[in-house]
């Protein structure tokens, strides 16, 4: 896993468009590896996006979310300079946190 979370938030017209990409293999547990055995499931189970410290999106995720998922959402209540934080925890208990600013 490389840089775990990338945050891009830009004012676009009257709203702020937020893009969050979480680098994660999101292994479903259904796929067979080169040795013919199932690759064990390994995926993000929880994530949260906060704006100025208040959650605006909280999620529980399953194995049916694609690899390196990109979440895109407008935040009409956000303004330039606002602080964003994104965190996730995966099925093995690993976690990542990142912060960004609306530009």
């Amino acid at each position, binding site marked *: 896993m490389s840089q775990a979370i990338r945050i891009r938030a830009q004012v676009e017209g009257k709203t702020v468009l937020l893009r969050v990409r979480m680098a994660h293999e999101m292994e479903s547990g259904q796929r067979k590896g080169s040795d013919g055995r199932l690759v064990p499931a390994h995926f993000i189970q929880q994530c949260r996006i906060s704006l100025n410290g208040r959650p605006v999106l909280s999620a*529980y995720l399953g194995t049916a979310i694609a690899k390196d998922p990109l979440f895109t959402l407008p935040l009409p209540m956000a303004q330039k300079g606002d602080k964003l934080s994104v965190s996730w925890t995966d099925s093995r208990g690993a976690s990542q946190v990142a912060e960004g600013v609306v530009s």
Partner: protein
Amino acid sequence: MTGPSNTLLDQRRSWLQGVALALAGLGLLGPTGALHAQSASSIASTTSGGGLDRLPNSWPKAWFEAQSIAQALALMSVKQPQDAAGQLVIQSADIAENGAMVPISLQFQAPCRSVAVLVDKNPNCLAALLEIDPRIPSLSLPIKMSQSAEVYVLARTQAGGLVMARKEIKVTLGGCVVG
């Protein structure tokens, strides 16, 4: 409501509130932390998080292991959602070439506060459970689809209604095996 049992409940309630606040402060609580902290008094009575009123306190393993839409909805205590009738719209390509990465966009024409995304015919139907600020007008996220199937999105609107939208997406290459 009087008597010792009520006192106990109050104690439990304030304890839960304290724990929720402490965990939320540390950023350790599950997705609904802050929202729960505000309404900790109702945690005790709705720990199951049923009916999509609020998300469960921890990752709901059984829900995510449901093997059919009906089973998932039953576990979530969802009964007879109304047709979304435009309050909630699923946008995606009608045909996805690669089931391992199918972007879908949810348009919340009516403000929504919690959302479940389910994929029929996937080995595990439930893809995501979300709690959102009702001011968020739309959200896009990428799902995996094992084969052509219907995507169901269930939402609790800010007004309190439970609505469901569906969309069929054809998949050229299944995503659970290759993804």
